[in-house]
């Protein structure tokens, strides 16, 4: 069962202001017991390019896993992505988690001068990209004559250190994407639906507890028999260690247009004392199967006691 999985924790970080700060940050995450450093992939308001930052973080650490949360599939050709992840996996002795998404942030597409295609097209492209990643990482040449990509007799190099390939993380919030993730990924991120192209009220409302359960059902539909092999992940955008969770909820909830109680139970919120947060995570693992917990880099130090208590249990 997915919910029998042990807890592990990750930090999503966009970068740092210097090389030294970046190295120190990665080492600190490792020392605090975090499993993984993840980098997002955006062209606005995110300091570093993920592939370079991730490669550097891996070199600066010994056991910390590194990955992307998540690469926007449309920004790079999957043959390039496959090669870059495989290189980092080899150079890190197998510590990569390859996170991909369909792309959603409109401002990224504007920055690149790319068409912002319909979600269906973007998801179709992501599905083909995942096939290319797996094909490139597998033994021998492969071909894909897809709607979106054509790859001919490509024997990807290098082959990754992890076999058959690094864990693939796919995150999303809508039914098509989550079914694809259930079918193809090893780790599934249960996210707000970002169909609006930006973080909006719509996304927050889409994270309420009932919707989170619904999303996990979509993953299950896609996964079938492999559902129990999946690791379910939640990135807590509203995460805070506080003695007064109620007060924080009352302060924040109206901005999102939610009742405080609803906000606290949503799939974006992890708020309370260390004990309360640990209890909440235990309940969510029991109820949703979500064992892989991600916080932002403004919160990872505060959440260290939670990590110390739960990681590996």
């Amino acid at each position, binding site marked *: 069962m997915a919910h029998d999985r042990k807890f592990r924790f990750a930090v999503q970080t966009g*970068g740092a202001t*210097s*090389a030294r700060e*970046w*190295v120190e940050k990665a080492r600190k995450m490792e020392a605090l017991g975090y499993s993984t450093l993840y980098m997002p992939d955006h*062209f*606005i*308001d*995110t*300091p*570093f*390019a993920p*592939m*370079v*930052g*991730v*490669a*550097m973080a*891996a*070199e*600066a650490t010994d056991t910390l896993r590194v990955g992307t949360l998540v690469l926007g599939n449309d*920004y*790079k*050709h999957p*043959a*390039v992505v496959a*090669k*870059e992840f*495989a*290189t*980092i996996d*080899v*150079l*890190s*002795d197998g510590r990569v988690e390859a996170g991909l998404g369909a792309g959603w942030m409109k401002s990224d597409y*504007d*920055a*690149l*001068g790319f068409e912002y295609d319909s979600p269906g097209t973007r998801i179709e492209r992501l599905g083909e990209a995942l096939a290319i990643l797996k094909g490139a990482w597998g033994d021998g040449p492969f071909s894909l004559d897809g709607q979106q*990509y*054509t*790859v*001919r*007799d*490509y*024997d*990807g*190099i*290098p082959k990754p250190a992890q076999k058959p390939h690094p864990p693939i993380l796919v995150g999303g919030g809508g039914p098509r994407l989550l079914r694809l993730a259930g079918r193809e990924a090893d780790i599934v991120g249960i996210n707000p639906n970002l169909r609006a192209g930006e973080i909006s009220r719509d996304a927050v409302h889409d994270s309420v507890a009932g919707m989170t359960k619904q999303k996990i059902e979509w993953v299950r539909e896609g996964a079938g028999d492999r559902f129990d092999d999946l690791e379910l992940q939640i990135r807590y955008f509203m995460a805070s260690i506080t003695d007064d969770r109620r007060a924080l909820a009352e302060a924040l909830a109206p901005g999102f247009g939610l009742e405080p109680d609803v906000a606290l139970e949503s799939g974006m919120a992890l708020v309370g004392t260390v004990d309360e947060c640990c209890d909440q995570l235990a309940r969510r693992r029991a109820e949703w199967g979500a064992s892989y917990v991600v916080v932002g880099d403004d919160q990872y130090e505060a959440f260290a006691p939670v990590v110390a208590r739960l990681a590996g249990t």
Partner: protein
Amino acid sequence: MASGREFRFGIMCSHAASATDFREKARQAEALGYSTLFVPDHFVDHPLAPMPAMAAAAAVTDTLRVGSLVLGNDYKHPVVLAREAATLDLLSDGRLELGLGAGWMTADYEKAGLDLDRAGVRIDRLEESVKIVKGLMGDEPYTFHGAHYTVTDLDGEPKPVQQPHPPFIIGGGAPKILGLAAREAAIVGVNANLRGGVAISDDAARSMTGPATDQKMAWLREAAGARFDDLEIQSFVGFTTFTDDRRQLAEMMAGSFGVTPEEALETPVVLAGTLEEMIDDLYARRERWGMSYVVVGVDVIEQFAPAVAKLAGT
């Protein structure tokens, strides 16, 4: 004069047996006095992806520069490229040399299913990319409306440590690409003409004889005008063979590439002979063509090191 430049040396490293092996190669290059570790960019035969490999090499060294030789422009959008290059420059404390080429290897395009446009189109696209990467590394939000790319009011992040931008390496073997290099690059690779789409062919070899190289330098000089003296001229020596009998080797190579033995020894893509003969050749090539920045393969990193020790910085 470009030929007045001091020698420096690079290592081309496209593969590693393991993570440990790669780290050792990078540290060894630094310890032996090489200036730069270069990584190529292909989907076949060259396993390491350049951006992560350069990042890893920079992470395990202190002064070694890292470079791409060269990135295929068509494999990544320039906005993506600019962001990765600036991140790498920042995280290496300013040690990136950004080699960028128009793309030429037919196999890369076939495998990945990319359209291999004619050379003129690829070079036009490269020129736009170079402008975009430089623009995004500048202080102001950047707008570019080209035939191939559109960037609107984008303030590139992060900004590189090297200002205004890391040195660009642009290489090639024909007038149009050398003209672009003359205008935009800090380092110019004088290379074979690879219009055949493969690295090794009689056509490519013929394009790198001594007189053909004279011709390339003339194109470059004419296009660069007053800028010529600011350029660092780079040569990638793809064939480095230590031997006491270079005449015999030259005859073998001559047969394989359709050139005379004299031409085989004269071409800047070959270094053959004893260490002393190689050093003499390097002096002669710097004198004749201004080639002061010499890149050899990682397979000769140790054997070639005495030449680096003698020449680097002189």
